[in-house]
Every structure is written in structure tokens, then in C-alpha cells.
């Protein structure tokens, strides 16, 4: 997955878990949970879906890397 694909995947999933927010208006370094008002269950839905589509397990210790679009895309595209 390239960084750009990862970014798109993250946006797609965010659109599903937070249907009222628009991920396209998000800044690269904006805090996802704060900007889209995701609670812990929304975030868990987001992480689960992300794991499903990327085919990799995401542990709670990885959550800090999913804080923003930029860091999340880097995490997903990484090795």
C-alpha cells in the first residue's frame, strides 16, 4: 500500500464510521478523534476496519500512530 492509497483508505473508513464528518476537509496533521468527534467505540470501529482492509493486526500500542491522517498513512504504508 502506498502512502496515498493508505490515506485514501483511512478517509474511506472515516466516512463510514463518522457519516456526518467530511474527512476531505481534514488537515494532514489534524487530530482525527477530536476533529471528527470520534468516541472510543467509533475509534475501535475505525481500527477494526483498518486492520481488515490492510490485513495487519493493529494493537492498542499502535493507536498513537493513528492520531492524524499523515501519521496513519505512514503507519499503514510502512513495512
Amino acid at each position: 500500500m502506498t502512502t496515498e492509497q493508505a490515506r485514501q483508505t483511512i478517509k474511506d473508513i472515516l466516512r463510514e464510521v463518522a457519516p456526518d464528518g467530511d474527512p476531505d476537509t481534514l488537515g494532514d496533521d489534524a487530530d482525527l478523534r477530536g476533529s471528527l468527534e470520534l468516541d472510543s467505540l467509533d475509534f475501535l470501529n475505525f481500527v477494526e476496519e483498518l486492520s481488515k482492509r490492510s490485513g495487519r493486526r493493529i494493537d492498542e500500542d499502535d493507536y498513537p500512530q493513528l492520531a492524524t491522517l499523515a501519521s496513519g498513512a505512514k503507519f499503514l504504508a510502512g513495512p
Partner: protein
Amino acid sequence: MPALGADMDEGTLVEWLVKPGDQIRKGEIIAVVDTAKSAIEVESFHTGTVGQLVVPAGQTVPVGTVMATITGTGAEAAGQPTAKPKAAKPKPAKRAPAKRAPAKRAPAKRAPAKRAPAKPGAAKPQEAAAVLPGSPLVRHEAEQLGVDLAAVHGSGRGGAITRGDVERAATARRLRVTPLARRLAAELGVDLAAVTGSGPGGAIREADVRQAAGVRAPAAQPARAGTAERAGAMRQTIARLMARSKREIPHYYLSNTVDLGTAMAWLRERNRSLDMSDRLVPAALLLRATALAARQVPQLNGYWEQDHFVPGPAVHLGVAISLRGGGLITPAIHDADGLPPGELMASLRDLVTRARAGRLRGSELTDATITVTNLGDQGVESVTGVIYPPQVALVGFGKVADRPWAVGGLLGVRPVVVTTLAADHRATDGYTGARFLSSIDDLLQRPEEL
């Protein structure tokens, strides 16, 4: 028209799910009603045959209006001297001990629930019952919802099928529609069964209905007005109920800071070793501890009615859920004290999803015996709540935050959470409230026993 919560005066019948002549059972969903807050699935209070549907779809009527007649049959009607048509009960006056009766049998048998040995032909409910998949409660629920247990994947201990599994299987089959979309579909004459939902879990949203109807964006104007109207109605509903609470209930408030060091470490280990779908959030542990504390201190679990305290028939834990469009709703997790953390978590996720998709059931909105509000995700340190009448207690949780904390004479950094209790002084005194908060604290120190 049942009162679906203390804050409802009228409701609009959206649709009947039954027709005259249909056999219905108590607890079966028979209609969808729109309230200021949400579209709600209304369950029948009786077993019998549908006589006449009095209120047509689209009509708004006050609480207490007869909506349909049900002719009693069998055991339910035996208590009535004549078999004359019995009008639908105006209010769920009884807090439904009978309705939830099967729950009492369940807890003891849940753990060793036998998994259906995928027998050919186990598809029919009768035959499924013969091989005993799931606890009696689960089988009852499956039968009511028309779910084939043989096809359900169990998420409980040892692969046992839980109520959450059954409900998920049932909702997966049912149409999920947001209230706005439902109303729009009625206005535009769109058949919802033919609409593909683009929302979470395939929920049908406003845009999907518009697309199906071939209506373009300009129609967004009245839609916005509709949303604003609903938001306004919801504010008024909340305003009335909360004003009543503050006017009538002499609140007293207590708070306690709980060290979550052990609980968070346990949670982290647990989540790391399990599949992602079994992951627990801290809120699930907090709810679990609250439900058990409510069982230990039953004086806070119930209602203040006609100048005295009426204990709740079980611990039905109300959970404040914020809705996307603004406002909040507080549906109950039934028999929460009997659900281990994993099942409680599944119930919570299911409830949040359905609350936001407009698929709550009437009993979930009327049965709560104590309510929890958790504003931790919003970053506040603590929340001191307003009690939902006629309940007598509201429990608040702030965020789990690392703080300097003294343990055994040494200063360390520990994750802590501020737990608060707002309670009705007519029903209890501070001493009882204090016991409740210290119960929650004790329970959270032994997470492995939760």
C-alpha cells in the same frame, strides 16, 4: 401510544409491522413510532391476535391513545374474565418484570452453554431447541427474533452464543434506516426494501432515499428544515425532562477518584492476547463495575414513584449516547449485571449503532433502572449528572488520565478516573451513595473478577 421514556408526550406512527388477524406475542415488535428523539420499535404488551389498527401511519397522537386492539388468547388472556378485545395498554405502567422474566433463568446456565453441533436440519427453531444451542434466554431471544441459532457464530465463552450474537444476527437481516430517511421515504413514496444503504452497517440514510427517488440536491432545503425541526423538538424534550428532574428531585452529589492502574494493565494484556473483535474499551469495564455495584447497593437501582422507592426488577443499565445530529438518548442494556465484560461490550456497541441508526426498541427506552454518563472521550475530568426521572441515581465517569498518585507511601504516576454519583435524596442518603461509589472502586481493583 406508549410512553417511550418519561420525556415523551406524543408520537407519530411511522408504520405498522403487523396487520389485522396476525398472531403476535408479547415483546414482539409491532410498530415503528417516531418521537422527538428517534424512531423507536414498539413491542407488544400482549400476546394475542391483532384486531383493528386504529391509528393510521403518519398520524401523531398523544401518549395514552389507543393505537390498536389485540384480542387476547391463551395464557395471557386467561387472567381476563371475558375474551373481549383488549385495547393496547396506554402506558407500560409495570416496569415489565414479566417481559424480562426469562432473564432470571439465564445467568446460571450461560457459561456452560452448549454449542449447536451443526446438525443437518437444525435450521428449524423447534429442532434447534432440541440440541440446546445457547442458554434459555438466548434461545428465547432467537425464537422471538426469528434467528436460526445454528447459523449464528458464538462470541461467548467457549464459543457460546450470546444475546448480543443473536441480536446482531437479527439486525443484520433487518433494514436499518435513519429516522430522517424513514420519514423522507414515506413522503416520497420510496420502498425502503429496494434502497441500498450507504451508512454504517448498511443503514439507509437520507441521501440514499433521495437517490432512490430520483430527487436531486435542491430538495436539501426542506430536509435541512426537517433536521432543524427535529433538533429543536429534541431540545424541548430534554429541556422538559431535565427541568422536571431539577424541580422535583433533591439531588445530592458524591465523587471519588479511582486508581485504574491494575484495571488498565489487565485490559491492555487482555486486548493484546485476543482477537481484535474481542477488544474491550475501558468504558466497558466501568459499565460492568457500575452494574455490579448497582446489584450490591440495590437502593440506588430503581424508581421513585408515588412518594416511595420501587426497586428495579433487574439492573437495566441506561447509557447516555450522544446522537450525531445533536442531543442524546439513554437506552438501557438489559440485565447488565449478568453480562460478563465481553458481552457487555458487544451490547454497548450494538446499542450505540442502533441508537444512531434509529433502531432502538421501546423497552430499551423505558426500562433503565440507573443511568451512566461517560464524557471521558470528550476529555472532561468529571461529570456531575442530572438524574433521569423516575430513576434515583446517575453515575458519571470522566476521562481516564495519568496523574501523580500515592501508593504505599510512594508517589507514582497512575491512570485514574473521577467517578461521580448524583442521587435522589428522597430515596437514599449520602451514606448509601458512598457505599455505591466505594463498591465501584473495589470492583475495579480486581478486574480479573469482573
